[in-house]
């Protein structure tokens, strides 16, 4: 197992290198010049040229890439062109809201989706099943921002139960922290609820049709233990895989959700950076997200051994 983990971790190095090359080239070949943006609307071409020189943007691309790779290898993500602050510090400042939102979303999505999926499979073909699947289709179809605005209108403007926007750090209290996260979590989580619920239902239906499930029922095993202990555990591998894939989707969704709910997280940081062409921030955030994704995939693979002891590495 340890040898497998080490092998997997080592295999991330070339993956991350390819990500780094792609990110760097895509950014630098896309139209947009941070110097022109920094200089402002009234700047003359001379002003812009001076700023380009200061930022080292007038150097050949291969040299800029080499400089970046060299600092990346030593764990330095670089410095924001606009804020003259290290990218690591900026990501650190913005990490808490994003991590909070990601955790609450995953918990919300997993709990609700698995419950719905199991119930839908158990009551397959009934009104409950059709309702759950209808809900899943809606979750897939309605864009994140539409859900966000509808929830804001309903729960913030109309009922005044929850705030429209913002983020309260957890050290200021669990209550205020949660109050700010309820609407963004539901908004972001809905699509994952839909995705995981559908997969759970489909996998559960397969498992429930197995002979050993019929045997369990014949032996008089109660419904709840039968569904949760016997069926769900055997259906877990594909569900966990989908949850892992969902983390990648979550990263994309975070960007929109943080904008709609004005959460000062990494998503907002990267959107602002894209608009300003602040290359070091964009590159740094993408590298961090890629690293997280690789790590999540590794954890998902390792979790298979827990759910299915036949799997060995």
């Amino acid at each position, binding site marked *: 197992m340890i040898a497998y983990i080490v092998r997997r971790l080592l295999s991330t190095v070339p993956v991350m290198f390819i990500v780094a090359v792609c990110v760097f080239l895509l950014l630098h070949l896309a139209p947009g010049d941070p110097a022109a*943006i*920094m200089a402002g609307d*009234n700047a003359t071409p001379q002003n812009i040229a001076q700023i380009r020189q*200061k930022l080292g943007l007038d150097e050949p691309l291969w040299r800029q890439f080499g400089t970046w790779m060299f600092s990346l290898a030593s764990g330095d993500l670089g410095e924001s062109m606009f804020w003259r602050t290290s990218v690591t510090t900026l990501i650190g400042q913005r990490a808490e809201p994003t991590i909070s939102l990601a955790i609450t979303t995953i918990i919300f999505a997993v709990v609700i989706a698995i419950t719905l999926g199991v119930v839908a499979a158990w009551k397959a073909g009934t009104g409950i099943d059709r309702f759950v699947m209808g809900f899943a289709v809606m979750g897939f179809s309605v864009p994140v921002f539409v859900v966000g605005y509808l929830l804001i209108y309903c729960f913030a403007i109309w009922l005044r139960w929850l705030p429209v926007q913002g983020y309260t750090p957890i050290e*200021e*209290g669990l*209550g*205020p922290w949660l109050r700010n996260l309820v609407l963004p979590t539901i908004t972001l989580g809905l699509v994952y609820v839909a995705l995981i619920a559908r997969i759970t239902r489909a996998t559960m239906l397969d498992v429930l049709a197995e002979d050993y499930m019929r045997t369990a029922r014949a032996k008089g095993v109660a419904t709840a233990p039968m569904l949760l202990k016997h069926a769900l555990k055997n259906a877990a591998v594909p569900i966990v895989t989908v949850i892992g894939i969902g983390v990648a989707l979550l990263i994309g969704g975070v960007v929109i959700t943080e*904008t709609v709910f004005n959460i*000062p997280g990494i998503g907002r940081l990267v959107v602002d950076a894209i608009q300003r062409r602040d290359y070091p921030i964009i590159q740094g955030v993408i590298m961090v997200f890629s690293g997280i994704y690789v790590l999540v995939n590794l954890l998902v693979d390792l979790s298979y051994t827990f759910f299915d002891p036949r799997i060995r590495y």
Partner: protein
Amino acid sequence: MKTTRRSVLTNTAAAAAIIGAPAIAKGQVRRGEQRTIRAVMHGDIPTFDPIWTTANMSAYHGGMVYDTLFGIDADSSVKPQMVGKYDVSADQLTYTMELRDGLKWHDGTAVTARDCVASLRRWSARDGAGQILMSRAKDLVAKDEKTIVLTMKERWGLVLDSLAKTATPVCFMMREKEAMTDPMQKIDTVVGSGPFTLNMAETKPGSQYVYDKNPNYVPRSDAASGIAGGKIVKVDRVIYQVMPDSQTAVAALQTGEIDFLELVPIDLVGQLQSDKNVKLEMLNVLGQVGLIRVNYLHPPFNNVKARQAMLYLINQENHMKATFADAKYYRQCGSLFTCGTAMENDANTDWFKGKPNYAKAKQLFAEAGYKGEEVTLLQATNIDYMRNSADILAQELRQAGVNVKVIPMDWSGVVTRRAVKTPPDQGGWNIFLTSAGGPAVGHPIALGAHAASGDKGWFGWPADAKHEELRNAWALATTIEERKKIAVEMQANAWNFVPHVYFGQWTQPAAMRTNITNMLRMAEMVPWWNVEKV
């Protein structure tokens, strides 16, 4: 341990207390909210150095923490600000400015004339008007701790106007230590002498900027007006919250999570008009002016006939209606200088008075030798009015027989590409759209786009010697009547060689909670002194 109903209730109460305690404490802190204003401005602050950039948000930040030697009042008159007494010699060559008593930097040290001289030098290296001023200056010295003496080689009528102007970069005063920084290098230390201090500990770049009342600020005794007069701060704190989504900002204003929204998108005005806790005010009556810049370096717009053709095909009403819908918020303007400013006039505007004349435009393009070559129009798709107007302009050009190619990109892409001087098919361009503040467009010197100095000028690089002579004469004029006369001449000439074309002038209301009172009306700046939260 046995679970009883009593133990469950006790544990639940304890858990609620733990969860609720910080919220209760926070509720107590939030009483201070009564004297805190949370404002959503039009964007993020790109840098804390308002001299280094022309970005308006940096100037807003500058207006909070820094002060100026002179200020502009609501009637656009120049008034002394940090300066107490000042004297202009009879030959108008020597300006002696004495600082007011008691001015202090936020670090507690006294503001000296030496600080101001260094600040003036750094500002003049970055600002267009400052560069002209310094090119005409013989000497700029600190005569003593409080007296600045500026001696000119030749008379220039815009010395005080330049020091007071709100067009960016504004002439803010900084400590000598910071002001000695290379003008091409950004300053990150924020120590001013203005009515607010930047609370760095609570500021989160890109998210929120916290400004606390400066208890040591010495305001003037005269009434506040524009960015002149007594800057008396009546709140403890102003927080600029960065909120990129207008819909969210409007909702936050309705629920009282924010107190002020600088620019309300016109399509959301109705939503706020029906809210009794919110009021709309027009703080910036001159608003913005939409500019269509054409590239003088390449065909067809290197030919004056093609540029004149542009005058005949623009229908400002269509452009404005597409984005701003309600005529209350826009106007059509044929003047080279912002309508509503002193320089507005109607010289040589016959082309503007009738309906668009596509036949005439087509004829002028033909006279320019245009034979259907591709004309590249850059379209910024992430800014509503630019996207809409580019679509309309493309259609107008097509109606005049122009083979237009619209290139969609974000504004950052336009900003980069407009600096490219190569032909359009090699990465250059023919037309792009932008906008500028009403006061700047109303001022022949303040707006870089008003220059027609060719290669050294602003993007589009128009060149016209007569226009530059007239700008120079305008700057030398000492009375408003003289300036108005020159402005008429300048416009008559400009609409012959056509430096650019306008697609309309518009304003957007600001929205605030009804308990926010006494906001000062000012273009290009939102002053937070004098304002009360009742």
